[in-house]
C-alpha cells in the first residue's frame, strides 16, 4: 500500500493571461518565462510539471516566491484550473469531474491548511475545527467529540470555546491543522503552513506534524520556501524554479547529488549535519573486523553522531537497523560529507 501513487500530475501547464491557449503554443515551442511576459504579456505559472505523490508520504514542494509552488498545490483541488495537463487522484482524472464530484472530493478526500490560517473569525475554535464536518451537514453535537479529540491532540485542550483572535499565531495554526484532521480526509494539502510562525514555534509544529504523520500516514503535500523545513519533513522533495521542476527525489539524494547550479546555491547554506542521515553517508555492508566505538541507527542524523564521537575523527561506528548491522561509518567520511562541494564530487565518483 505504502508505495501506491496517490496523486499523479502529468504535463501540467498553467499560463495566466487573457488567451492562455495561444501562449501555450509558444511555451510548448520553448519560449521562456521572461520572453512570454514581454512578447505575449502572459505569465507562465507552471511548465510541464510531472510529479507522482505516494500514498502515506510527505511530498514537499519547495521553491522561492514566484516559483509557482502555491499555484501548483491549488491545482490539486482545482482552486486554480490548469491550462493543459492531467491530474489524477486515486487514478481518477480530477479535471473531468463535475462541480458536484469536485465538491465531494474537496469535502471528503482532501483537506487544506493555509499560510494565513484562514479560520472563521466569528466561530469558536471548536466550530472552526469541525468546519469540514459542518459543511457536510453534520451538527455540532455530531462532530464535537471528534473535534475535541483532535484539538487535544494538537495541544489545544481547554481552548475550545475561545475565538481565533484570542489565540496566538501558533495556536491558530494548530486549529488549522485540527480542522484538516477532523475532516478525516486522506490527503492533506499544506500551503506554507508554518511560514507565518516564528522559528521556535515553527520547529514545534514540524515535530507535531511528523508525530501525527507517524500515526496517521496521510498523503501530505507540503509547500515551503524554507529548505531546512523541506529537508526535515520530506519523504519526496520537488524543487521548483520559475514554474519548472528543477530536481525531485529523495531529499538526501538531492543534497548529496545536486543536479543543478541553482540547487547547489540553495543547499550551500544549510546545516548539513542536522539534515544528512547516517544511511546516506555510511559504507553499506557488514564487515565486522573493525574496532567500532559504538552502535548508531541508520536514521540518526550526523549531528547526533558528532555529539557521540566527541569530535574525535579517528572513530568508526557500527550502523544498525532493527539490531542488525547494515553498514559502518567512519568519522572521516562524516566530516567530508559536511563540506558541500566535497560531498558532491565524492558521491559522483562513487557512482
Amino acid at each position, binding site marked *: 500500500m505504502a508505495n501506491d501513487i496517490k496523486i499523479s500530475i502529468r504535463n501540467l501547464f498553467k499560463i495566466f493571461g487573457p488567451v492562455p491557449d495561444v501562449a501555450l503554443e509558444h511555451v510548448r515551442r520553448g519560449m521562456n518565462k521572461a520572453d512570454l511576459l514581454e512578447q505575449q504579456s502572459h505569465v507562465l505559472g507552471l511548465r510541464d510539471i510531472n510529479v507522482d505523490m505516494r500514498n502515506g508520504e510527505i511530498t514537499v514542494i519547495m521553491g522561492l516566491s514566484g516559483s509557482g509552488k502555491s499555484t501548483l498545490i491549488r491545482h490539486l*483541488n482545482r*482552486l486554480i484550473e490548469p491550462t493543459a495537463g492531467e491530474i489524477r487522484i486515486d487514478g481518477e482524472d480530477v479535471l473531468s469531474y463535475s462541480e458536484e464530484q469536485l*465538491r*465531494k*472530493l*474537496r*469535502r*471528503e478526500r*482532501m*483537506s*487544506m491548511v*493555509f*499560510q*494565513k*490560517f*484562514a*479560520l*472563521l*473569525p*466569528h466561530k469558536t475554535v471548536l466550530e472552526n475545527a469541525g*468546519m*469540514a464536518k459542518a*459543511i*457536510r451537514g453534520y451538527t455540532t453535537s455530531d462532530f464535537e467529540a471528534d473535534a475535541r479529540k483532535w484539538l487535544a491532540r494538537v495541544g489545544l485542550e481547554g481552548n475550545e470555546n475561545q*475565538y*481565533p*483572535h484570542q489565540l496566538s499565531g501558533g495556536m491558530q495554526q494548530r486549529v488549522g491543522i485540527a480542522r484538516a484532521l477532523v*475532516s478525516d480526509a486522506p490527503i492533506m*494539502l499544506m500551503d506554507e503552513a508554518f511560514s507565518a510562525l516564528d522559528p521556535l514555534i515553527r520547529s514545534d509544529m514540524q515535530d507535531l506534524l511528523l508525530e501525527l504523520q507517524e500515526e496517521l500516514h496521510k498523503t501530505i503535500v507540503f509547500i515551503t520556501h524554507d529548505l531546512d523545513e523541506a529537508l526535515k519533513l520530506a519523504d519526496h522533495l520537488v524543487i521548483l524554479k520559475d514554474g519548472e521542476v528543477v530536481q525531485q527525489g529523495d531529499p538526501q539524494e538531492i543534497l548529496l547529488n545536486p543536479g543543478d547550479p541553482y540547487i547547489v546555491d540553495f543547499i550551500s547554506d544549510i546545516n548539513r549535519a542536522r539534515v544528512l542521515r547516517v544511511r546516506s553517508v555510511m559504507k553499506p555492508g557488514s564487515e565486522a573486523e573493525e574496532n567500532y566505538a559504538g552502535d548508531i541507527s541508520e536514521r540518526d542524523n550526523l549531528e547526533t553522531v558528532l555529539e557521540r564521537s566527541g569530535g574525535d575523527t579517528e572513530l568508526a561506528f557500527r550502523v544498525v537497523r532493527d539490531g542488525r548491522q547494515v553498514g559502518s561509518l567512519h568519522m572521516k567520511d562524516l566530516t567530508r560529507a559536511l563540506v558541500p562541494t566535497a560531498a558532491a564530487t565524492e558521491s559522483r565518483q562513487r557512482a
Partner: protein
Amino acid sequence: MATYDFVFSSLGLNDWCSEGESSAPMSMAQLLSKTKGEESSDTTSLWELPFPSMDALNEACPAFPQSRELTKGLEEGFLDIKDSLSVVLDPITQPLSWFLDGTLYGMLNTPWWIIIPALLGVVFLVSRSWKLVSFVAGSIFLLAFIDHYEYAMQTLSIIFVCAFLCVLLGVPIGIAMSRSDVMQRMTIPVLDMLQTLPPFVYLIPLIFLFSVTESKLYGIAIILYAIVPVIRLTNLGIRLVDKDVIEAADAFGMTPRQKLYKVQIPLALPNIMAGVNQTIMMSLAMVVIASLVSAPGLGVLVLRGIRNLELGVGLVSGLGIVILAVILDRVTKASLARINASQKQ
C-alpha cells in the same frame, strides 16, 4: 435683426424660420422692449455677444424652439406616461401605504406605558448596555413631558418602516452587486444619482405620480434617499471579506449558498451594520423634508415654525429631532460595536 441671423441665412434656412414667425410666444425681454417702444439695435458689440443658446437662436429664427419648450416638453411627456405608469406603480407600492399607515396606527393607539418599555427592551436587546437604556429612557420621557411624544412616535414609526424596507431591499441588491461586476457597473451610476439629487427633487415626480394624501408618497421618497448606503456598504463589505477565508471555504467544499450565509454575510456584517446606521440617519433627515408632502411627525412642527414664524415651536421640534437622531445613532452604533467585538481578526 438678431446676432445669429447669419447662421440661418448661411444654412439657407430662412424659409423654415419665417414659417414659425408668428407662432412662437414672445419672451419677456421682447415684450418689455416692445412696450418701451425701443427697437432692438442691429449693432451689438463683441463685448455683449450672447451665448448661442436656444433663446438667442430663437431670436434669430422664430421656428427654433425656445428653452422653455424643453421643460414644457419634459412635463408633457411625463404627464403623458403618468397614467400608464400609475397603473403599474400604484398596485406595487400600495403595500407600502398599508405598512406605513398600519405602523403609525399601531404606535399611536397603543398606550405609552406599553410602547416606551417595548422600545427600551429593543434598545437593551441590541446594545446590552443599561447605560444606553437609561439614556434613551430619559430622552423619551423628556420628549413626552413636553408633549411631543405623539410627534416623535410618528417620526419613529416612519423611520422604522422605511429603514426596515431599505435593509430588506438594499442588502439583496448589495449582495447581487458584490457577485457580479456587470451588476456593479450598472448600479453605481444609479446610486450616485440618488445620492447627489437634492432631496426636494425626489418629491417633484412623486407628487405627480401619486396623490399627496397617500402615505406611500413620502415612503418612497425616504426609501430612495436612504437606501444608498446600505447597498453600497453591503457590496463593499462582501467584497472586502478576507480572500484567504473564502479560499478556505472553497477548499473545504462549501456550496456558493453556504459560502454566502456562513462566511460572506457574517464577515461583512460590521460593514452592513455601518450601512444600516447611515440609512437610519438619512431616513431621519428625509422624514423632516417629507413633511412637505404630508409626512406626519416632528417635521410638521418644524414646517409650522417656518411657515408661521413660530420660533419656539420650530426650535423645540428641531431639538426633538436632534434627540431622536442621537438615540438612533447611539443604539445602532452600540450594536455595531458588539458585532465588531465578536469578530476581531
